[in-house]
């Protein structure tokens, strides 16, 4: 890893990823560094097609970092990462992909992440995506996340795409057994002529399963975002979906919410709000001495924090 790689890496993971209990760093389609420990094993799949991560049951406070960086213009990297989280294990997983594309060809990463949570497992999954570089080649990221939650498991998924990604197509699917909770927070900022599409499909299959999906998006310039959610309540369950978007200039946002209750005790709520920055928020901050531009920045940074 050279200095540039390190800088790119720091865009997706704040702390040095090699300080974690276990990690796997992938650069331009190949694993370049890896560390495991007695509780967390990382096993590469054949032909650099991904990794299997095994977390032993009852693991307490484990952390896994699995960043991906791409610096080659024209590269299309497809990776399958499977997470097997043992019973009652408690783990933080930090993933993400940074692309620096200084060339004229597109660079693309498709990360397919599958999570298998055993009973009582607790996962916090943090994912950051960003693009850098001055080339005209696009930076494309198409993550697919599949989540399978067994009884009593809990997962928080926190994803952010803040800058430089030209095209993204995100798919998140989950199936929840009884007494599980899935909390998803997604933040996307698009500018120029970027396009971001995100799709959530959550099936609540077990009694007392619950999910909270929060999407915060900001679309500026000529960018376009599309939010689709499809929540199905098959039993006594609870779901709350919130899609909240700020549009600026010619930014466009489309929200397509769908909630489907198939049981009398399913309680599903959807809220969607799209609009420009609330005028009174600007007025308040300007009355504290901020210029209109500064006030806008403060509001958007807070919104996406």
């Amino acid at each position: 890893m050279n200095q540039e790689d390190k800088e790119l890496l720091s865009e997706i993971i704040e702390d040095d990823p090699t300080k974690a209990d276990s990690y796997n760093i992938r650069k331009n389609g190949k694993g370049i560094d890896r560390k495991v420990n007695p509780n967390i094993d990382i096993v590469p799949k054949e032909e650099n097609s991904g990794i299997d991560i095994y977390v032993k049951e009852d693991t307490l406070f484990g952390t896994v970092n699995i960043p991906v960086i791409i610096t080659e213009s024209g590269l299309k990297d497809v990776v399958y990462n499977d997470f097997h989280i043992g019973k009652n294990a408690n783990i933080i997983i930090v993933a993400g992909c940074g692309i620096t594309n200084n060339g004229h060809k597109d660079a693309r990463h498709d990360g397919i992440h599958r999570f298998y949570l055993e009973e009582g497992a607790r996962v916090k999954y943090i994912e950051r995506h960003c693009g850098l570089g001055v080339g005209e080649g696009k930076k494309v990221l198409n993550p697919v996340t599949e989540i399978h939650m067994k009884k009593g498991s809990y997962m928080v998924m926190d994803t952010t795409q803040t800058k430089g990604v030209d095209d993204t197509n995100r798919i998140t699917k989950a199936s929840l057994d009884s007494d599980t909770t899935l909390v998803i927070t997604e933040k996307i900022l698009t500018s120029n002529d970027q396009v971001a599409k995100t799709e959530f499909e959550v099936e609540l299959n077990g009694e007392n399963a619950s999910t909270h999906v929060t999407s915060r998006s900001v679309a500026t310039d000529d960018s376009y975002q599309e939010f689709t959610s499809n929540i199905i309540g098959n039993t006594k369950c609870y779901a709350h979906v919130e899609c909240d978007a700020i549009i600026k200039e010619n930014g466009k946002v489309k929200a397509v919410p769908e909630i489907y209750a198939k049981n009398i005790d399913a309680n599903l709520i959807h809220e969607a709000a799209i609009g420009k920055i609330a005028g009174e928020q600007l007025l308040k901050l300007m009355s504290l001495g901020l210029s209109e531009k500064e006030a806008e920045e403060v509001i958007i940074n807070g919104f996406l924090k």
Partner: protein
Amino acid sequence: MLELKDICFERDNKKILDHINLVLDTSKFYVITGPNGSGKSTLAKIIMGIEKPDSGKIILNGEDITDKTIDERAKLGIGFAFQQPVQFKGITVYDLLKLATKKEISKHEACTILSKVGLCALEYVDREVNKSLSGGELKRIEIASVMARNPYIAIFDEPEAGIDLWSFQNLTEVFKEIQASSSGTTIVISHQERILNIADEIILMNSGTIQKVGEKEEIFDHIFKPKKCCKEVSAR
């Protein structure tokens, strides 16, 4: 010194402010009072620059500020606590106070500012300024964000609204302190006798006009003086 010269503001064919003339001295404590809809908040917004008058001038220490933007006026030392506090997403009380003071204040300092409005303890500084806070809490944070700036011209729009009686007593004390110590002008829009009691001068508004400016006794005489129509009614 702040002067309002012949301010008019009309919307939907309704004269909301009708030829307002007012001179406010530096280091005095004014209370504006008057019925709902009489134009008090509109007048305050016009001073802050949130609304632009259709005609008339606003002069601050001899300088015409009528065309200045809100932030320019803020930098000249005007501050305004909104009647309806504004809510944000992802902005904490601490963030707001840092923006207000324009300094990297410590959390301890933030607490000191909050304690003035009766919100003690660290538990508030990291809360987001959103609907999870109660109406009274939001109102106090709004007031704190203006007090933190120590403005040369400070305007508080109905600071008592939504604040419980116990805290209101403390708030009155804070305003008394400001009245005694501030070197600038304080304008409080209020209906509360306790606040009216502190005023150096009371400004009574009615249907977009200034009915009277004076000390408490004069104003109260004016307000409670039986009106002609009432006499007629009682005579019958």
